[in-house]
């Protein structure tokens, strides 16, 4: 019996210049400015609330997300949605400095 490998969801968001960012998805790279990153964060936060996730699971089981001022449309199933949300959240996380 073959055991499937743990699936990898390669979503990455990186800063390229001072106000330009790039979101790497399995299919394409999407250039974003900061307000577009903030909008993506807001949409992902809205989609990953308990009620919203329940509603997605009980209906289509996927979401179509407009990104970068509606220039790109991204298809996300639930694990992909959660992975992308995690990536965006970690992008906004700034660790506190600890003096040792």
């Amino acid at each position, binding site marked *: 019996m073959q055991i499937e490998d743990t699936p990898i969801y390669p979503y990455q968001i990186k*800063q390229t210049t001072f106000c330009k960012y790039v979101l790497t998805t399995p299919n394409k790279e999407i250039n974003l400015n900061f307000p577009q990153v903030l909008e993506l*964060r*807001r949409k992902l*936060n809205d989609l990953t609330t308990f009620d919203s996730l329940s509603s997605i699971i009980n209906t289509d089981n996927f979401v179509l997300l407009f990104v970068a001022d509606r220039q790109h449309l991204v298809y996300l199933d639930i694990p992909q949605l959660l992975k992308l949300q995690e990536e965006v959240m970690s992008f*906004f996380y*700034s660790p506190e400095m600890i003096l040792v």
Partner: protein
Amino acid sequence: MNTTAIRKQMSIHPDVMDLLNNQIAMEMKASASYLAMASWCDQRELLNSKSFFYKQAEEEREHAMKIFVFINDNGGAAVSPNVTHVTNDFESLRGIYEKGLEQEIGVTESIFKIFKAAREKNDYTSEVFLQWFIAEQSEEEDTFRSIIDVFGLMEGMPLKMIDERLPKE
């Protein structure tokens, strides 16, 4: 010093920004609610109360706008809220003012929550900004309490007579 990519774009903390966006929704809901109260009073020719609530509706909207502009000025993204479930049906003038006080207390508690979050996240910009709102809410609550006291003092008097002794703003 925090000089992460996000800090270079925003002066406020993203989590505090989310709470401030919720506050905008709360202030706009309060504004819509006061407008409904103003309409109830206007239809019954309660002139002072009508002026008071029209003014309150404007003030709440000004508060929302103040937060809205603050978020955008500090590199965040202000969100225009949905305003739903506004009650237009009331029992009495006193009931309206009591509902108004409850609403103001709710707004004050929400401001306290954001203030606390700003302090925990070391977001001093938001903390200082919110100080004005705390003083303002204290005044608002006092205004409503004083009006409700008038109802207690004038119990049994005709409604129109009570209304004439209430402030217009």
